[in-house]
């Protein structure tokens, strides 16, 4: 099994009070924000950052910031201290500069200890007891600047094991403090700030893609790492359309009803590998032969290698490119099906399919559509697409009414595709105003399609959605503020006699 570490090393990262080069860990306090160093696994006891500007000029150390202890009136090494992150110590000298803040006190000193790592410790820090290896006292109580130099102990240098260095400031009498700056520790940073600052561990990564097996949803596939489901891994959203556009419909929103779930599969570079779409055809309360598809807004067709799983019958009103996407479109368009009734057969009675409970129920049909963006790590000719470039909001769903390719019906304010027939806009009751970003809405902003992230039990034939869902009007009129959960089956929310349920159909 191949193993790798979650860490990659750089020579120098700037902008930190604590830094590292290939051989040294440095604390110069110049971030001015100890929270940054704390998050990077430094620890401080009774010591705070102080701006040199806040000190009298004769006390200032290098740069803009230093560390300052509380008054040193304790010989306990756990009273005032700085503790490094876990490091792999190298041989060489630990160095830093220090001075006192006032000429008072009996004794002032510095003690250095190392702390070994015990992964089996019940202590959450996994630290063993400190072992002192260096002791230094101020020769007299004065304001002079001292450079402290202490060799890394041979017992831990180049051992390949993680250690922390504890720098303690001790003293008795008076109230003078210590200032400290420019601390250098020979060694390699070995803490993990994203994992409670424990020492780095070598993680199992069977496919070598950098994502540990425990986090990798495809642990043996180097070309896939994560699933990104919408609306969730076990849930479906619903699209419900009226197909009489550009004329008003009857607002039963059952002319085409499709449940769907999307999974944007990505690799360890957060690039899209594929989009897996599951589309469940539920109802068609229509006499039209309607198609259904979606545009990936802003994603050119050459970014996709291929499409599979669609259902395009013998009709010829859809023209495809070799990769399965629709031709003559500036953004990628996937036609999921071109005729609903090719997939779900009409029951032989009534107008539609699964919209009248007095007629036989037609089992739902599922289409599993795959859009391939990368094949064994190789993107399409147009290059890779990052997950961030294809948010859920860029999936622009629409129906094609009665095999008239130019007659698309989209969700409110979603743009038409290149193949929409502009002659339909502003006819009937449509009040599309491209300059205002208004599409597929009437003059009073009513839509021809709705989308429900939580799924949807649609109304029966010819019953307006406002009659089936008793808080729908309040939801819409309040711009979604009131009853955002209007579709739930709570007491007083539905008139169940006006909603199609498969169990109540014949």
């Amino acid at each position, binding site marked *: 099994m191949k193993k790798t570490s979650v*860490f990659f090393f750089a020579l120098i990262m700037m902008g930190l009070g604590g830094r590292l080069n290939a051989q040294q860990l440095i604390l110069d306090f110049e*971030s001015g924000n100890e929270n940054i160093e704390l998050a990077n696994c430094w620890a401080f006891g009774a010591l705070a950052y102080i701006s040199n500007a806040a000190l009298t000029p004769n006390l200032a150390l290098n740069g803009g910031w230093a560390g300052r202890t509380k008054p040193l009136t304790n010989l306990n090494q756990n009273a005032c201290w700085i503790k490094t992150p876990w490091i792999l110590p190298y041989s060489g000298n630990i160095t830093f500069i220090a001075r006192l803040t006032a000429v008072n006190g009996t004794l002032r000193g510095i003690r250095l200890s190392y702390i070994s790592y015990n992964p089996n410790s019940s202590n959450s820090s996994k630290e063993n007891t400190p072992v002192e290896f260096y002791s230094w006292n101020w020769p007299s109580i004065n304001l002079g600047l001292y450079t402290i130099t202490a060799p890394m102990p041979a017992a831990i240098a180049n051992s390949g094991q993680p250690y922390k260095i504890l720098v303690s400031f001790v003293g008795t009498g008076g109230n003078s403090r210590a200032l400290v700056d420019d601390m250098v520790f020979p060694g390699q940073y070995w803490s993990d700030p994203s994992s409670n600052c424990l020492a780095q561990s070598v993680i199992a990564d069977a496919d070598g893609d950098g994502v540990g097996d425990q986090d990798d949803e495809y642990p043996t596939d180097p070309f896939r790492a994560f699933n990104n*489901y919408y609306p969730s891994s076990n849930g479906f959203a619903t699209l419900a359309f009226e197909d009489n556009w550009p004329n008003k419909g009857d*607002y039963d929103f059952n002319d085409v009803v499709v449940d769907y779930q999307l999974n944007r599969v990505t690799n360890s570079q957060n690039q899209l590998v594929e989009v897996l779409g599951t589309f469940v055809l539920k109802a068609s309360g229509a006499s039209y032969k309607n198609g259904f598809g979606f545009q990936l807004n802003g994603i050119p067709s050459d970014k996709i290698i291929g499409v599979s799983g669609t259902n395009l019958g013998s009709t010829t009103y859809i023209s495809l490119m070799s990769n399965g996407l629709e031709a003559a479109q500036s953004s990628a368009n996937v036609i999921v099906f071109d005729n609903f009734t090719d997939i779900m057969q009409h029951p032989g009675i009534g107008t539609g399919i699964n919209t009248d409970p007095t007629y036989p129920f037609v089992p739902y049909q599922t289409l599993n559509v795959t859009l391939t963006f990368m094949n064994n790590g190789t993107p399409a000719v147009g290059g890779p697409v990052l997950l961030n470039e294809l948010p859920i909001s860029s999936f622009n769903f629409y129906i094609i009414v009665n095999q008239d390719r130019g007659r698309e019906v989209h969700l409110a304010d979603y743009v038409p595709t290149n193949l929409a027939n502009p002659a339909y806009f502003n006819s009937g009751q449509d009040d599309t105003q491209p300059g205002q970003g208004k599409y597929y809405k009437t003059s009073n902003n009513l839509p021809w399609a709705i989308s429900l992230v939580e799924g949807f039990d649609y109304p029966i034939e010819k019953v307006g959605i406002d009659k089936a869902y008793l808080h729908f009007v309040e939801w819409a*009129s309040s711009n979604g503020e009131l009853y955002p959960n209007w579709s739930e089956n709570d007491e007083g929310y539905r008139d169940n006699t006006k909603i199609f349920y498969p169990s109540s159909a014949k």
Partner: protein
Amino acid sequence: MKNISFLFALAFTLFMASCQKEEVNPVDPSKPIEELTVSNDFKWITSQSVIIHVKGLPTPVPVRNVLVIRTPDGSEILKIFHEMSKDVTLDVTLHSVYSELYLKYGALQLTSPIKDGKAEFSLIPSKK
């Protein structure tokens, strides 16, 4: 004295007025859908898009781990492999009933309210 009382009453009235929550216009639920006039920016969807800003933590070495965005019901809606020192902007879609989001990065777990379609996270702790 009267002037002081008047000023106090005026200040109290203004204070109370400022505390009143802006109310949504009352709606007649019996109004048929055909007669509704709704806001120009209403989208007729039950979801919301949220832009998430994650502020990175400057680190002495590049640290990469899995960043997960979760909804309050525990659903994972976005997952990326992320370098801790980098800022990142993410775009997620979730049910409009949710008013907060959760971020998990390694062992770090953060919560952010959703406000005006945005959520903010910082990998730099705000308190010592």
